[in-house]
């Protein structure tokens, strides 16, 4: 009997000891933190998403590794006005309809010391095409050929004018074959960028990068950068205030002004290439009536939303493109709130409040819509609430509903929806065609409203074959003007980004073409 119990005791005691050892084990890891002091020029960065993987090929690590950790670089770069500029490719040319030739820099070395040539670029692109269906479908590459060490020829399977733009997409960034082990398994990103991969702690999910002394672009500002994934905006805010971070983004919008007041911390607000937009189900009466859609757009107070919901992290929007984009239609202005105009339009469409309940009706049916949105982007649910309140003042009853993403997809597939508020990227590829054809062309993949306008379709198709950018952009401007008038999607506001950093972080330049934010090589710490 005695013997029977003793093992139990031993097990329990072992468990307790284990627990205490574990806790002492984690104190010992403090040692490595003190080692950080050795680097005088280290930046601790609070990344806005959980760092789940550093895999840029078959995982979603592309944006992180390319834009935020600056380990890898793309062939094509972009200017702040979204026009393309050379990256590690110096120039490109469309030789024939489906043939492109890219000239590469001849002074680029991978972090493993090897020289980057067209062969490596080809290998890198082939890998990502094989694994990433999204990139594959955007690139539409049929074959590639390394003409010489610094010339890459690409054959596309069909006419693809946006190919250079796609090659600015971070998932296409070039990695060395030494990123993979002998079995072909991805191990770590070996790129060409200003920072080298040093370590990724998979338990705490902390990514550490160090200065690349041999960067082709010149001197790199920081010795070292530590990226910690902190998905909760509030936690990021508290951490930078407590001095645990040097740089972070998107603290709660409501906190931006207060944090800006905190000593040694400053907040900068920028627009990012993403818009808050309200899809309107054109198959549902009376949303097929353009007057109703225009009235809704007049009823929404974009300025109030920008100020009180987004706390000015973001701005009222007119069309799908940022005014700073080179191809944007600069004539368009955001709809300003005008309840009288909305009333006029709705009355003309036959919607008046006959029963005096504050909601307009027609043939005994109230003007009532449901509005779906999701909560992964913090601005959406309150925006839906605010919009519902504003529309109600115009006599339109809108019932907002916050749902799971999967459920929204189902509802959209089945057509059981009226309005859908979402935040869409508008420069996945820095080219207007991508967005306009996806959103507004008949049957486009992101044409949620089911919008179909032959004039729009014709303009976009026409633009495809035009090589002259000015001419091409003119066609797109016309499309923008049409959809501005017809409002199949009510564009509400530009998405914003709040950069929060310590005062001693200098040389940071915001890149509006980045997905969230981009770390530039010139950034340094001023002591």
């Amino acid at each position: 009997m005695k013997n029977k119990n003793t093992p139990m005791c031993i097990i329990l005691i072992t468990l307790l000891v284990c627990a205490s050892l574990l806790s002492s084990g984690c104190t010992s890891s403090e040692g490595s933190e003190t080692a950080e002091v050795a680097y005088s020029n280290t930046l601790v960065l609070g990344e806005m998403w959980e760092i789940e993987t550093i895999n840029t090929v078959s995982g979603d690590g592309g944006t992180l590794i390319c834009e935020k950790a600056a380990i890898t670089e793309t062939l094509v770069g972009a200017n702040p006005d979204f026009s393309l500029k050379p990256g590690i490719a110096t120039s490109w040319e469309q030789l024939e309809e489906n043939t492109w030739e890219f000239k590469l820099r001849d002074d680029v070395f991978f972090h493993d010391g090897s020289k980057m040539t067209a062969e490596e670029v080809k290998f890198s692109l082939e890998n990502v095409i094989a694994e990433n269906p999204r990139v594959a479908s955007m690139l539409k590459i049929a074959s590639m050929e390394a003409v010489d060490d610094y010339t890459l020829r690409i054959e596309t399977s069909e006419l693809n004018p946006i190919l250079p733009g796609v090659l600015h997409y971070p998932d296409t960034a070039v990695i060395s074959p030494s990123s993979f082990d002998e079995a072909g398994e991805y191990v770590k990103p070996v790129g060409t960028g200003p920072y080298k991969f040093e370590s990724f702690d998979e338990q705490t999910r902390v990514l550490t990068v160090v200065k690349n002394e041999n960067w082709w672009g010149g001197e790199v500002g920081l010795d070292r950068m530590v990226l910690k994934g902190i998905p909760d905006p509030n936690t990021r805010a508290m951490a930078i205030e407590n001095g645990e971070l040097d740089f972070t983004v998107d603290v709660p919008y409501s906190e931006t002004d207060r944090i800006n007041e905190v000593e040694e911390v400053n907040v900068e607000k920028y627009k990012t290439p993403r818009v808050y937009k309200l899809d309107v189900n054109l198959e549902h009466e009376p949303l097929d009536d353009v007057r109703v859609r225009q009235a809704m757009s007049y009823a929404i107070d974009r300025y109030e939303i920008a100020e009180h919901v987004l706390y000015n992290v973001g701005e009222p929007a007119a069309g799908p493109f940022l005014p700073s984009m080179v191809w944007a239609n600069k004539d368009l202005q955001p709809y300003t709130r005008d309840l009288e105009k909305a009333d006029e339009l709705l009355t003309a469409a036959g919607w008046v409040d006959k029963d005096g309940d504050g909601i307009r009706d027609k043939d005994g049916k109230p003007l009532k819509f449901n509005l779906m949105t999701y909560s992964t982007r913090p601005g959406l649910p309150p925006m839906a609430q605010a919009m519902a309140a504003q529309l109600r003042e115009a006599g339109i009853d809108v019932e907002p509903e916050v749902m799971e993403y999967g459920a929204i997809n189902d509802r959209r597939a089945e057509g059981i929806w009226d309005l859908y508020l979402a935040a869409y990227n508008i420069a996945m590829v820095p080219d207007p065609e991508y967005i306009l054809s996806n959103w507004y062309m008949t049957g486009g993949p992101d044409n949620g409203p089911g919008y179909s306008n032959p004039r729009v379709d014709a303009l976009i198709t026409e633009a495809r074959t035009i090589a002259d950018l000015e001419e091409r952009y003119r066609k797109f401007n016309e499309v923008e003007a049409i959809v501005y008038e017809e409002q199949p999607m009510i564009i509400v506001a530009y998405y914003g980004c709040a950069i929060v950093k310590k005062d001693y972080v200098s040389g940071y330049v915001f890149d509006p073409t980045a997905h969230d934010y981009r770390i530039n090589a010139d950034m340094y710490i001023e002591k």
Partner: protein
Amino acid sequence: MRYFLKRFGFMALTVFAVCALTFFLMNAIPGGTAELILKHTFVGLEESATEEQLNQISSRYNLDDPLYIQFFRWVKAAVTGEGIGTSYVFRKPVLYLLALRLPATIQLAGASMAIAVLAGVSLGIYSALRENRISDHILRVATLFGVSMPCFWVALLLILVFSLKLKLVPVAGYGSLENLFLPAAALSLHSMAAVMRVTRTSMLETLGQEYIRFAKAKGLPLRKIISRHALKNAMLPVVTVIGFQMGNLLGGTIVIEKIFAWPGIGSLLVDSISARDLPVVQGCVLAIVSMFLLVNFLVDMLYTHLDPRIRYG
């Protein structure tokens, strides 16, 4: 021996049933697995996916096979020790992820349980010895609130006070002892209160027993009477409650890990559920259920150790 066989058999059955349940449940998600993987990993949640891309993903992960075949394949791999799948999001074997995350959860749950038991038992004894005095009443009211306050609320209040106002400990994170302080405190409160209340009751009951009086008659000092005679007997119900509380605690780790960015199984589970990372969800549920069953098994064994009147076998 037969008892143990039966017990382990039941544990295995439970684990299997739970896994099957999770598997079929998770596959009933609207939207479909292929679409979710595609969007999460390659496209971005808000963008739309084409049929072609979906097919590519489906065939890559064998998602076109009937569910029961997929499940059978999973079970086979698990039983033969091949592993329990690969995460769609992390691109790593699930077992590897669990091994990475489990220590953090065990550490948090262990520390919380240790706090709960140590503090709960001592306060419970104190309260019992001071029955109906002021300090007893204060403790009992405190207990009532302890079991009634939501632990995430407690966690937020602790952050507000200790991190933001007093700046004593970091807001969140993992790695050092000071990081453990707030989450463990927030998580343990509920269990501590439960343990304390049971200890008090059971201690009072035990102190009224004849053998306590006899021990006094033997001339033993009070300290000895409590530590030797009362405690062991009073611990029986406490041990049962610790078993119950383990479930509570494991449930609580989910919220607490989320709030404190603690890299444990709980936060992994929540993230995987929202990312529909089915193999990881499956693995987390498996790990948590196994842990819970194991702890309860240990509790039962401890029970037999404490109470010689009970014998399994």
